[in-house]
């Protein structure tokens, strides 16, 4: 939906002049729906007008190109409308023209900080449809990599969220840790961002020499650093003042919006598809699903750290359980999934990721539907932002922990 601005030149004086006459400052160009309407507050003692503010697509707090149309009464937010699609890359359509094995290189791009988890989802769905049995070693290694990816992803948000509240230091600490994990990932896969390590039927290659030991050494190190974050950020009075009781998301509202991941857990729902609908060998490892009590920004941030701790626990267990053996099955020259459909649900770092695939016994899927966590999580923004202040908007938006590519796909 293209939205064109009819009112003023963006300046405070210009906007005031036009809105007084017209009223509707934003309207969809195709006439399908009116966007945000500026209201005259003539009934007040002091005549005031709402101001419409475009937060994004180029705004430091939107990590990329999410755009939020905000109607402000002073600093109070009256209405918000997230405008998405600036990063739409048509992955679902592209997948229809790709070999089943090529989709893996495609999906690690929609949520670019959790590439392995996305790849894992595709590998699982194609294997499910084809009825492939994956070697045990490959599955355990996949879990190892998926959990490290989760830590990597959460570390990024642990760094960037305080940054949005004005604390610049945690960002650098988080990226110091990320760098160490990235080194491990690079050693194993050769890549840093789009790792493309999973394959249909297994993995690209076996673990290189020393990888397990490297991973083993890293766990206590990262765990120690997590305590530093808790001291620096969670225990900070200003951080608490900014996030406690801000952006309250009750469990029922969260469920009705399809919110998942750390956000849902913060609202007190212990939903985690690794536990409720286990894939890989998640039913064989011991871990807890952390939950928050209030569902505010503080809880959501706390969930990240708690989830990282659980991931580290899983990683420790996986180290001892990786059996020897092959990491791949031999695939036919042309991979065809039999006719039918399959559905796979994974717990991605950002929330629930689902893939739904319909195949017609061809070389490519007939339909490949993605259900990405950020899309549903961000859709709860208008509910959360109504009646909050502009600084809270940043606190709430940051606590949605979204990746724009994951919204727009």
């Amino acid at each position, binding site marked *: 939906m293209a939205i064109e601005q009819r009112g003023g*030149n*963006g*300046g*405070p*004086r*210009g*906007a005031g002049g036009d809105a007084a006459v017209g009223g509707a400052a934003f309207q969809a160009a195709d006439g399908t729906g009116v966007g945000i309407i500026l209201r005259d507050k003539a009934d007040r003692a002091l005549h005031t007008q709402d*101001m419409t*503010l475009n937060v994004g697509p180029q*705004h*430091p*707090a939107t990590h990329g190109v999410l755009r939020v149309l905000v109607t402000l009464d002073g*600093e109070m937010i009256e209405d918000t409308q997230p405008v998405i699609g600036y990063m739409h890359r048509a992955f679902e359509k592209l997948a229809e023209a790709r070999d089943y094995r090529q989709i893996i290189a495609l999906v690690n791009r929609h949520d670019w900080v959790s590439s392995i988890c996305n790849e894992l989802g595709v590998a699982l769905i194609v294997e499910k449809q084809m009825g492939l049995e994956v070697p045990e070693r490959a599955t355990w290694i996949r879990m190892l990599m998926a959990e490290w990816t989760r830590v990597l992803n959460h570390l990024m948000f642990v760094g960037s969220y*305080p*940054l*949005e*509240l*004005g*604390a*610049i*230091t945690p960002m*650098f*600490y988080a990226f*110091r840790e990320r760098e160490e994990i990235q080194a491990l990932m690079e050693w194993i896969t050769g890549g840093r961002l789009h790792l493309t390590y999973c394959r249909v039927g297994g993995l690209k290659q076996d673990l290189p020499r020393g990888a397990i030991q490297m991973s083993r050494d890293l766990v206590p190190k990262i765990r120690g650093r997590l305590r530093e974050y808790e001291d*620096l950020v969670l225990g*900070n009075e*200003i*951080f608490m*003042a*900014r996030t406690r009781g801000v952006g309250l998301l009750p469990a029922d509202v969260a469920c009705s919006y399809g919110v998942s991941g750390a956000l849902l857990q913060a609202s007190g729902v212990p939903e985690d598809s690794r536990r409720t609908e286990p894939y890989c060998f998640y039913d064989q490892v011991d871990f807890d699903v952390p939950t928050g009590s209030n569902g505010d920004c503080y809880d959501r941030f706390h969930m990240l750290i708690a989830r990282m701790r659980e991931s580290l626990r899983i990683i420790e267990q996986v180290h001892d359980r990786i059996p020897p053996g092959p990491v791949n099955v031999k695939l036919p020259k042309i991979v065809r999934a039999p006719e039918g459909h399959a559905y796979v649900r994974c717990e991605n770092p950002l929330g629930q990721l689902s893939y739904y695939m319909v195949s017609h016994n061809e070389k490519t899927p007939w339909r490949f539907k993605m259900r990405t966590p950020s899309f549903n999580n961000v859709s709860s923004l208008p509910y959360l932002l109504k009646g909050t*202040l*502009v*600084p*809270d*908007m*940043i606190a709430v938006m*940051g606590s949605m922990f979204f990746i724009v590519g994951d919204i727009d796909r």
Partner: protein
Amino acid sequence: MIDTLRDWLSHYWVLMPVKVVVILLVFLTVPLVVGYLEHKVMAHMQARLGPMEAGRFHGVLQLVADGIKFVQKESIVPKAADKWVFALAPAVALVPTILLFGFLPYGPDLVPIRSDVGLFVVLALGSVSVIGVLMAAWSSANKYSLMGGVRAAAQLIAYELPLVLAAAAVAMQAGSADLAVIVERQDTVWNIVYPWHWFAFLIFGAAAIAELTRPPFDMPVADSELVFGHLTEYTGLRFAFFLLTEYAGIVVQSAVAATLWFGGYKGFIVPSGPWWLLLKVFALSFVVIWLRATFPRLREDQLQSFAWLRLVPVSLLLILVVGFVKVGF
């Protein structure tokens, strides 16, 4: 020889240009050193190195290089901007800050402009910069700038009161608002040794950081919300002037705090002199930078309630306590 020089210098029209040049030199160098300090201190607190290239040794000339860069940048004025106000705003912010340097006592006989109410002149001049901020915010014709300006105005009004009250506590103790006299009264012990002055210093510190719109009180330029507040539309030299104002502000407020509570130019072991003041300024600036590296920023309403509900009552109580002490002992 020295006598002749002294005779010459005692002449008003000779002395004044010398003062002006020296003050300008101080103004142009000390804030740069604080700026460099900020780069390096924050970098090391954040597990990085900071500038390492410019000036060969650990990036010592980084800010000079930045200055040259700013001079070369194109000065962009938004089409809808109020051009005169837009152009004038950096000067309105900068000039009072330069003037402030003239009122500080640098040594026993080194007070460029001595005034009986020096303390209050300093505080009054410090708040003139707000007008520059407001001018910049309004004339930029940018919504983010406007919001930043409104926040800045509200914040600076709120924190002016505790700032003056905390300083007044010292003036009462010294029995004078003359900065040179205040320093002289701290000949035996610094003001900071008295417990009630701990509170005065902390209130002054919080209020001064708020006046400077430095973290954790940097709502007016909150980069993640308002892009860069009133500075959003500024480029090149004009932007550099605002930056210079900020660093010069840190220096001046640190110098005022050092004068009021830490004995100004007075020291121990090493003889008293401007170097002591400089040392204290750097120490206090370090704390200001440290705060920036540690804290997130407060929300606008929390900021206001912190000023009106905490700082103002405490500082009023403080005035009362200092009054009792002064009369009682």
